[in-house]
């Protein structure tokens, strides 16, 4: 349970971080960035990851933009080193409050006080709350590499099985959430509180007065990457009263549409049942308290 040996390099600014990645790779090393280390270190102690060099983004916490939370009612911009706990305790505008609410599902306080938004997205676990929320709120990942900056939309980010569109020589500098969702919620099931979910569901409802006019449904744990479920969203677009009948139909559509993995401890049938329960639960939680009779 000890990580294999590596050389350690501190990045003092962004140019330094990109430069170190490029130079180390050119020298035949296999460098990796470390931010909070809350995913990378467990991977290294299990020797599932054996980078020959680590480039530490820690000193960049001194760069204000890297830990900034810029909350505009239409776009929320988070610096790459913003921690889960910083989001949990931030007073965000209503369109992004779902992010703060969802943080209680991410591990435990000691994990949340070090783990970062960008680290979570680049790690790309198919059940990570940030990955679901990125699809729910149209996140854009801003990455800087040797060729300059580029923006990666969330729907192009996840390639499945922990692979993402962020290249090994790129540093994520900011994550922007571009689609406010004032009526949104996340729900999940894990065997122990704080573990990665077996299945998690995130829902955003569009409401016109008291009627549902559309929405998004995102699932984790049912495919190699988090997915939006068009079939379930179609039911929401068909409109209706926000109540158990509509939400059961949405949940059924989601459970039918997916083709979840089937492994001995967690069967596909079980993941489908969880999906049905969790989608309905997330829908109910997404309804604002002011809408009568929904709860």
């Amino acid at each position, binding site marked *: *349970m*000890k*990580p*294999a*040996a*590596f*050389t*350690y390099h501190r990045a003092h600014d962004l140019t330094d971080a990109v430069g170190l990645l490029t130079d180390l790779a050119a020298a035949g090393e296999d460098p990796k960035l*470390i931010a909070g*280390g*809350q995913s990378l*270190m*467990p991977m290294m*102690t*299990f020797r599932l990851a054996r980078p020959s060099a*680590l480039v*530490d983004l*820690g000193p960049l916490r001194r760069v204000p933009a890297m830990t900034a939370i810029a909350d505009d009612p239409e776009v929320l911009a988070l610096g790459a080193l913003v921690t889960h*706990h910083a989001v949990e305790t931030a007073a965000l505008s209503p369109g992004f409050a779902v992010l703060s609410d969802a943080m*209680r599902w991410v*591990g*435990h*306080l*000691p*994990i949340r*006080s*070090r783990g970062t938004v960008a680290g979570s997205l680049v790690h790309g676990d198919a059940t990570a709350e940030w990955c679901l929320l990125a699809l729910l709120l149209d996140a854009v990942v801003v990455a800087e590499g040797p060729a300059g900056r580029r923006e990666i939309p969330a729907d192009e980010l996840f390639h499945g099985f922990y692979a993402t569109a962020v290249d090994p020589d790129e540093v994520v500098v900011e994550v922007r959430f571009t689609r406010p969702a004032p009526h949104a919620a996340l729900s999940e099931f894990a065997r122990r*509180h*704080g573990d990665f979910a077996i299945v998690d569901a995130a829902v955003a409802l569009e409401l016109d007065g008291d009627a549902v006019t559309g929405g998004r449904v995102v699932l984790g744990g049912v495919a190699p990457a988090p997915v939006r479920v068009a079939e379930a969203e179609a039911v929401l677009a068909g409109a209706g009263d926000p109540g158990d009948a509509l939400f059961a139909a949405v949940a059924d559509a989601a459970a039918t549409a997916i083709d979840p993995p089937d492994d001995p401890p967690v069967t596909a049938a079980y993941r489908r049942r969880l999906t049905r329960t969790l989608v309905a639960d997330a829908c109910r939680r997404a309804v604002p308290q002011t809408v009568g009779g929904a709860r």
Partner: protein
Amino acid sequence: MNDPHLLTLHVNGEEHEVVVEPRRTLADVLRHDLRLTGTHVGCEHGVCGACTVLLDDAPTRACLVFAVQAEGADVRTVESLGGEHGALSDLQQAFSDHHGLQCGFCTPGFLMLAEGVLAEQPDASREDIREALSANLCRCTGYQTIVDAVCATAQARREATA
């Protein structure tokens, strides 16, 4: 030694100079290099919380931080809690009074977790405290007594500042 680094670590208000390999975790440096063996190591992958210390006041898994990453940060371990001649802190005394420990293996981690939580949320409710303490594992007590000890300390500290 691979890529040795000379580090200055701030631990419990003192400066320590150590030469370590970058792969050495903060937990191992505290225990083996600084001989501060109060910080315990259980799972070494972030799940059990036995290694919890305060890093710049935030409860942190010392097994999930490389010591090289802790340079410049203020580290507090369980050794910082007690007074002279083995005197217990209020929180430690509450653990004793409420039977919040049996074998004691998990205790340093719970103490540092609770210190961090109470510093950030002095008004934490019993429910908040239960939620926060769920971060760490204890194989002996069944947790209720640990929750009791932390709630009692929170209450006493609130009364003392009221």
